[in-house]
């Protein structure tokens, strides 16, 4: 490897003007706007599911959905903050309580359903569609989000990708309730949980390759 002095010379010669990043909160807001737009378009195409307003009378459903929304917003904010070196790594804590509430409500739904319906809840309805739908929103939004935070490679790659994965999964799963008539069988909920896990795992693995293109490690 060349000497440090030579490296400094090379970098200094390469010091083209750069455009400063906007504040992380603003960039998070921009991404959330794109996410809302995409979910809105899909809801428009698929049609809002019937009985959505009534479903909110069920407190478990209402809490779960509001928590999903809160998770999406806070996790996106955390991902953008974590990607910048001078921000605190404690941002990762922010979405966790909401995520716990969101996933907890889903888990409680599984158990309640199991008790009410027994093994018949294990039939596969249109669960596979849900899985695909969650992935379909997550992949384009995830690509956009990871590209927007690609400078996180030499900073906090794992924490950033984790927060990004949570945001994506929450948008995907939360958005789904608008247009899919989920009959809340155990299988449906399990599939949702599995999709959330897959999205977070994809964000973690996909970010590695992407972050390496910014600064080789």
């Amino acid at each position, binding site marked *: 490897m060349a000497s440090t002095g030579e490296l400094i010379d090379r970098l200094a010669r390469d010091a083209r003007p750069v455009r400063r990043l906007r504040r992380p909160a603003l960039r998070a807001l921009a991404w959330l706007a794109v996410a809302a737009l995409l979910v809105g378009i899909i809801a428009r195409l698929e049609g809002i599911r019937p009985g959505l307003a009534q479903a909110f009378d069920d407190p478990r459903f209402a809490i779960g959905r509001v928590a999903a929304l809160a998770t999406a917003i806070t996790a996106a904010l955390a991902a953008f903050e974590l990607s910048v070196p*001078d921000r605190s790594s404690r941002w990762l804590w922010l979405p966790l309580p909401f995520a716990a509430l969101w996933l907890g409500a889903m888990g409680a739904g599984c158990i309640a359903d199991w008790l009410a319906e027994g093994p018949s809840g294990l039939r596969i309805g249109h669960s596979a569609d849900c899985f695909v739908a969650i992935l379909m929103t997550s992949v384009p939004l995830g690509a956009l989000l990871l590209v927007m935070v690609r400078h996180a490679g030499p900073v906090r790659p794992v924490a950033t990708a984790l927060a990004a994965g949570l945001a994506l999964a929450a948008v995907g799963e939360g958005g789904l309730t608008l247009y899919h008539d989920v009959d809340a069988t155990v299988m449906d909920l399990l599939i949702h949980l599995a999709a959330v896990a897959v999205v977070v795992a994809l964000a973690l693995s996909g970010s590695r390759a992407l972050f390496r293109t910014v600064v080789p490690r």
Partner: protein
Amino acid sequence: MVRAMPEHAGRPETSPGSTWGALMARAQGGDQAAYRRLLTEITPYLRSIAARYHRSREDVEDTVQDVLLSVHAIRHTYDPARPFGPWLATIADRRALDRLRRRLRQAGRETTLEPEHETFAAVAANGDTGGADGGLEAAELARAMARLPPGQRQALELLKLKELSLKEASAATGLSITALKVATHRALKSLRAIMQGRR
């Protein structure tokens, strides 16, 4: 503007941070002289951070270069309205840790060869064991090496004895990497033939 920086609280203020921040702001605008000054001035500070994680001078210097490359790649993420110290310190800490992790992983895979790792009863089969037999073996090898054609001998010396990389050896000799590989391969083959002929 003063903001609480919990991660780096208690870190001694080692730099005229505001000067560095101003230099970085100018560097973001394309001011090469300011950028060179900044990188030169932060290097001793980076070395001191790297030295907290690494003992070998080589690792310290490689870490400093990792940090400089990272600073360069993401210099657009610095916000001149905020202090420069924490921005730089986070990158330095992370890159030093990255290298430390890589070193630990390597250490986990590689083990120093000890006498108890000998696999055969015959001393000669286990290479240089450090004793008189090892010396004998080495002398025999040196004689065999002396009989190699100069090109093959040079390739072996650079790549196997001095343990240069192909790139470094190519720079030192002016030979292409392929030529070096071929020479090494032939040298090992000749050596094997010479040594076997002797036994």
